[in-house]
């Protein structure tokens, strides 16, 4: 005999697994610190690449002027200012991605909790049916 309530629950859970659940389940397989740490690390790497690209464009933009002035300027000071700029950019970007991924993790774990609750409900239904 078909249990209508159970079929409805199973359909809902299957559609969750196919849509939002896929991402949530993937996120849920990490520990919180692992997930956020890994994502922030990836962000730092992409911010570094982005910084290099922008810096390269900046150099190329005024290449001739830069080449003539490179002998006059204080290279140590220049490198220092670039370093500060780099740290500032990467720091800001890492902070933003930390916030984004913290929110994502907590959202995913909340929705997974609801999913596991439904799973329990489902197994309870099966047990009841066996008894009945």
């Amino acid at each position, binding site marked *: 005999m078909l249990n209508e309530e159970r079929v409805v629950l199973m359909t809902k859970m299957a559609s969750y697994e196919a849509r939002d659940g896929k991402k949530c389940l993937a996120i849920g397989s990490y520990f919180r610190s692992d997930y956020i740490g890994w994502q922030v690390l990836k962000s730092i790497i992409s*911010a570094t690449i982005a910084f290099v*690209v*922008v810096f390269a464009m900046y150099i*190329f933009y*005024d290449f001739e002027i830069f080449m003539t002035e490179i002998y006059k300027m204080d290279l140590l000071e220049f490198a220092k200012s670039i370093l500060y700029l780099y740290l500032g950019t990467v720091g800001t970007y890492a902070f933003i991605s930390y916030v*984004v991924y913290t929110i994502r993790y907590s959202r995913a774990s909340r929705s997974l909790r609801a999913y596991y609750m439904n799973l329990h409900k489902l197994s309870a239904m099966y047990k009841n049916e066996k008894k009945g």
Partner: protein
Amino acid sequence: MTTLLVAKQILLTIYSKYEVYITPLLKFLLALITLCLINSRLGYMETINRMTVVLIVALMCSFMPMNFIVLMGAVFVLLHLYTFSMECAAVIGAGFLLLFLLYLRFSPKDTVVVVLMPLCFLLRIPYVVPISMGLIGAPTSAVSVACGVIVYYMIHYVTQNATMIAAMADEETAAKFKFIIDGLIKNREMVVTIAAFAITVIIVYLLRRLSIDYAWTIAMTAGAVVNIMVLLVGDLIFEINQPLLGVILGTVVSFLLVLVLQFFVFYVDYSRTEKVQFEDDEYYYYVKAVPKVTVAKPEKKVKQISSARSGAGRSTRPTHH
């Protein structure tokens, strides 16, 4: 109105019934239009400027995730630009890379806006995107819309100045580089458009979330007005000389298109609003429930007329238990 509602109902039924086929078809069409437009605007590379190549890639896009269209669009643009001028490809490629690294890497759900935005620009109704993203998206959609605007203006700048760039000698790499970057960074029209669209998205979003009657309509109207205002003020401050009539006409057409969207997504009957209060162990609930307007699809009645005796006709029908 009832006819329209019935039509909507039928469309929704057809969509839910054939979703498996319709979604890939829509993706295919979007990819096809995008790639054809890119080819018609930038067709420098002969190899990919062929209908067969476009069709094959569009077919691939139809069963790949939505972001694949964005990727393919970027690849096509870069290949064309590479054939045209190395410097152009380098600058635009760096721009795409930055957009990807800094924003699209977060893989927001509305990445497709980056493709839709330039398309709507070419159709002269770019305003439809910020207003509808405010209605169906989140405030972060403002960043996606901004990315779309940047992509459009980057490509637009290159196509507009193609003769100028081509006329520069090959040895003038540094000068070319400077010319292209200057054009992109000092493009005031782009900055004003980004500001206008971002403000529009946020205002539309804030207003449609309000718990007032006709929130969506108010949000759309306010969004359209604010969009025109910011564009005009920006125009006056930075002396861009945007065609005023084009902006207003484009906004009106966009508004009408968004009305269609509203009809499909959020068509409710405010006269039957119910306000209820209840409580459970943890909360008090103040609920405002606005019913959606729906009509029952008229059922077709098939009357069987047969010359056979009535008893025979009845017995052929399958019965369900």
